[in-house]
């Protein structure tokens, strides 16, 4: 690896990371306007045209507010809490493929931070670390609501990690690879010449499990038990100030984006357009880099769709009760996940035998 490679890698990483952070202000406005749309009220529309500058105002407000470090907290862990949530959320995006590759000086560079051969395991492993920020932050706050919220959050996240892992496992089974990039490459073309060869058509049950578990993993409604306002004030971040709240929120939105990216890569064909092969597109467009831009636009559009679904579901489905939540995970999702693995294995066996 020479210096040019290193510079391009650093720039690429920074661009992808900064791009993913931009999800936060975008989602702030989408979520608030979306909520308003569903609840039939105008929503924020005063700051800038159509209220588009609202996120900027929100962020400035958060930054200018007083920093309160309550007297009873365990200071080191309390201060680390938000960062411990943000760091894993930032690191998981490394495995997401945003496109095939672009070329600089006739040298190909992947449209992905890192092509990790154990991509899906990396996402599961690093993604599971987000709970420590919540757990330590909640415990260090030395507040009953925080501790209960942290306990609930952890129980919920670890319970739903199993169906998530099982769904991912059947995807690995289907594609025969851990790498998200290879999964996307496999999804090119069509199934029986009619429908796109996407994971969602080959692994419908797996996608459903992954989709449900993704909501629980990101603490989104209908699974936002950790912060049930009605019972726990604000859950694990009760004792945190505005900017720490902002950091938790940032991590939540980035996790949502990562989950959307995973669903796109594993089940919705990644950068592929339905029915059109990459080679044909390259012929039409004539340039590798224009194709790369088109691929990024495709992935981002698909991700945006899932982000809107997140908002849509949030304001449509009421919150679960905690025992219902646990029952859903252990009694329904985990047996279904195991069943899906067996089903996939048997289908693959029959396909191989035929």
């Amino acid at each position, binding site marked *: 690896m020479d210096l040019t490679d290193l510079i391009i890698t650093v720039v690429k990483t920074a661009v992808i990371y900064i791009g993913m952070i931009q999800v936060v202000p975008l989602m702030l406005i989408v979520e608030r306007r979306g909520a308003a749309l569903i609840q039939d009220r105008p929503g924020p529309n005063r700051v800038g045209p159509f209220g588009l500058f609202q996120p900027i105002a929100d962020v400035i407000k958060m930054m200018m507010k007083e920093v309160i470090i309550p007297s009873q907290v365990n200071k080191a862990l309390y201060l680390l809490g938000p960062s411990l949530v943000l760091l894993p959320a930032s690191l998981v995006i490394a495995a997401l493929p945003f496109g095939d590759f672009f070329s600089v000086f006739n040298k190909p560079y992947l449209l992905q931070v890192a092509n*990790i051969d154990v991509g899906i395991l990396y996402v599961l492993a690093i993604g599971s*670390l987000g709970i420590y920020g919540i757990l330590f932050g909640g415990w260090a706050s030395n507040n009953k609501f925080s*501790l209960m919220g942290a306990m609930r959050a952890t129980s919920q996240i670890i319970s739903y990690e199993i169906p998530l892992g099982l769904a991912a496992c059947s995807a690995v089974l289907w594609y025969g690879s851990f790498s998200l990039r290879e999964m996307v490459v496999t999804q090119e073309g069509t199934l029986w010449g009619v429908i796109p060869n996407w994971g969602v058509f080959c692994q419908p049950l797996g996608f459903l499990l992954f989709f449900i578990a993704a909501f629980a993993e990101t603490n989104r409604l209908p699974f936002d038990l950790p912060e049930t306002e009605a019972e726990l004030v604000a859950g694990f971040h009760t004792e945190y100030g505005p900017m720490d709240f902002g950091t938790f929120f940032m991590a939540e939105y980035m996790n949502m984006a990562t989950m959307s990216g995973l669903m796109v890569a594993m089940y919705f064909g990644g950068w592929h357009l339905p029915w059109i092969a990459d080679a044909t597109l390259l012929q039409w467009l004539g340039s590798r880099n224009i194709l790369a831009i088109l691929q990024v636009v495709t992935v981002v559009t698909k991700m945006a769709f899932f982000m809107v679904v997140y908002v849509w579901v949030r304001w449509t489905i009421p919150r679960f009760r905690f025992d219902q939540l*646990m029952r859903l995970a252990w009694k329904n999702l985990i047996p279904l996940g195991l069943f899906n693995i067996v089903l996939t294995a048997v289908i693959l066996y029959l396909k191989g035998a035929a």
Partner: protein
Amino acid sequence: MREILFVIFSIFTITAASGVLLSKSPVYSAFSLILSFFGLAGLYLLWGSTFMAMIQILIYTGAIVVLFVFVVMLLNLNTEKENPPNLLFWGISAGSVWLLSLILLRVLTRSIPSKLPAVPVDQLRTISKLLFTRYLWPFEVLSLFLLVMIVAIFAITRTGEIPVGGEKS
């Protein structure tokens, strides 16, 4: 480059591991344990075993330490209320120290290679294939073992109420 990283990760792991022993609060110990597991994962990466590194983070950091932290928080361990160590405690400690010293002696007297061995190609598939051919029986026995664990846990805890909030059970 790999040698430098090896030294960095090793020092990081050892420092974090001593943090586990030296912290006064068990929660801080758990936190140090997470850091030291990360150092270990880094070492696995250096050996080219990405799979082991990820499993290290997934299982040890993501699951086992959660359990530790839960126990610490559930039992609300207070350092001042600790029982004074008895004879059994001292016996076990002395035994472990002796065993550890012997292992260390064995390791240190061996010639230390000046270079790390090369990374094998496609470790991922090799490990997976070996696991389901040569080590198939240990693998199947493992699932029996896990089943026994599930039964044992319920036998030990007995009570299992719906965890709704923080009421005392």
